[in-house]
């Protein structure tokens, strides 16, 4: 599957493990609840670990674990749910998270510009045919009123 990362279209090299799947080797993302349940056993995992956050998850709850995490996936069940925009901003500005923040799921290519302004640097769209369109919207504006989170 292809995604956008740091303004380039690349192949996704992460496995996104559902709560029912067995943990596989290599780079994996899991849900926050699974992380909370299996944190200790995952300490011996070979490969990087990413956590997927639902809009209703509370960002403070993972703040102590961020040094063990290489990717935060912000899930979009619906493109109209804007909570993940605040999550991204808080991860970058308050918790100083430097690794990948990825928007995942049902968001619009036309939201990529705002998402990148709040600190999201990777985009995994449900419909990967739209990646080119998404990439092009990142240059929609050359000026802005508010400070960006990089």
């Amino acid at each position, binding site marked *: 599957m292809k995604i956008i990362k740091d303004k380039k279209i690349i192949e996704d090299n992460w496995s996104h493990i559902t709560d029912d799947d067995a943990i596989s080797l290599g780079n994996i993302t899991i849900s926050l609840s699974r992380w909370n349940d299996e944190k200790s056993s995952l300490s011996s995992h070979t490969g990087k670990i990413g956590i997927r956050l639902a809009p209703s998850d509370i960002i403070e709850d993972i703040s102590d674990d961020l040094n063990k995490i290489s990717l935060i996936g912000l899930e979009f069940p619906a*493109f*109209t*749910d*804007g*909570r993940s*925009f*605040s999550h991204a*901003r808080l991860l970058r500005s*308050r918790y100083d998270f430097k690794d990948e923040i990825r928007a995942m799921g049902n968001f*619009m290519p*036309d*939201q990529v*510009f*705002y*998402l990148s*302004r*709040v600190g999201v640097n990777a985009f995994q769209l449900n419909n990967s045919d739209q990646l080119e*369109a998404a990439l092009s*919207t990142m240059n*929609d*504006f*050359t*000026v*802005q*009123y*508010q*400070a*960006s989170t990089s």
Partner: protein
Amino acid sequence: MYQYTETDQTLIDERVNQYKRQTKRYLQGEIGEDEFRALRLMNGLYIQTHAPMLRVAGPYGLISSKQLRMLAHISRKYDKCYAHITTRQNIQFNWPELENVPDILADLASVQMHAIQTSGNCLRNTTTDPLAGVCIDEIEDPRPYCEIIRQWTILHPEFAYLPRKFKIAVSGSEQDRAATQFHDIGLYLVKNETGKTGFKVLVGGGLGRTPIIGKIIRPFLEKQHLLSYLEAILRVYNLKGRRDNKYKSRIKILVRESGIEQMSKWVETEWLQIKDGMEVSEDRISSIQAEFKPPLYETLAKQDAGFESSKTESSAFNTWINLNTVTHKISAYRAVYVSLKASNSPPGDITDKQLDAVAELADQYSFGEIRTTHRQNLVLADVKQADLFALWQKLDRLSLATPNIGTATDMICCPGLDFCALANAGSIGIAKEINEALDDIDYLHDIGELKINMSGCMNGCAHQSVGHIGILGVDKKGVEWYQVTLGGSSENDAALGKRLGPAIAKNKITQTIETILGVYIKQRQDNEIFLDTVNRIGVSPFKEAVY
């Protein structure tokens, strides 16, 4: 008034181009209906009963004559030769074609105007007092802060997909003319005990289905913290506001369900973590204030002899002066309300010819500026006493001098069933009927100050719940009925109207209003206005007379 910098202009030009590409992709089937809906709404475009409706932002109600001429041009080229002023000081066009909207936005951008975030679940146009900068009871001009807020809201990346729409109003005077207590955030410019000016911050007010008066979340906020405090409130709302039910998604419901103490705790905790990084510097404030410096008033006598004698000679002129003009902070000037409530046209509508003519009059008599008001009229804020008679004659010829500001026929009215897809009942037709019934000018003036607000559905676009008399259209098995409330107010003494009784049939509504006014005339004491009589005697005497 504020003039765009290169950055402002680049931003709205780029926005036009963005929307042009989005419209093209939509028309080519590359953007779905739901997705495009969100994108077009944030560019002011609704799809209504008959056609799309485009809402253009009137930033805090301030418009130049050049901009007004462009609105006239747009109404001619893309619409049916008229525009409509809204309760949020915006301007609406009821008949544009979806395909033409990018071109309309480009025309608007050429005169420093846009339709950004005039709709959708985002930060909307900030509103204020239409008499800002000229009224006699001002603590400080609110417009520079409105402009600072405007810039902060426009394309704010974090708050474009809120649980629901979000409206901010700023009032800078003793008397609240901006319905500040009925906004998601209401800001009052106030002085603290040391004489320093800052903001009293209210949160969780609103009209619509669940009208609620805003609660004070911070009695005094220093100016430099304006944006960080707004950002803190918005972040709390974005994260905690309900998204499960659109009728419970406004911040007023979050405040009501969590309580103002809890809300305040959340906001203050958030604010303490961001306030030092987001200060609005004194330099920034003074450079924006410089954009709103007073026009070059002439040094004139406090009373113009010609003006005084015209008032004596023409009782019609005198009446218009009393009702449609107000005292100005410079005694030799007055602020003039241009009434958009003539009996033969829908409340708040203005034709292309009138738009052009008002632009001309603004250039000639009022430093080229026009304000829109939340009661759907226009204001020429800086007119010399000596020019008032000539201005009155010209406005009269344009049917823009109906002497009814603040009276029963100065109704706030939504487009209703005639235009709006949401409406349950007509409102323009009822407004016309009431207007005709109260046509006798002496009767109208005898009734005096009275605010009638009428909405065609419970979304309440015309603020019926805060009308001295509120009229709400409801649908009963396909028939239009009207609920009447008495005693609402959106001013300092903010209150929600109390229901008169069961809904009234369409053919009885005008008669009901007349009956209500009859009770008032009988019961009033001294110079008591309608609202005060209702507050003193309650709803019962009115109810007994009507049912």
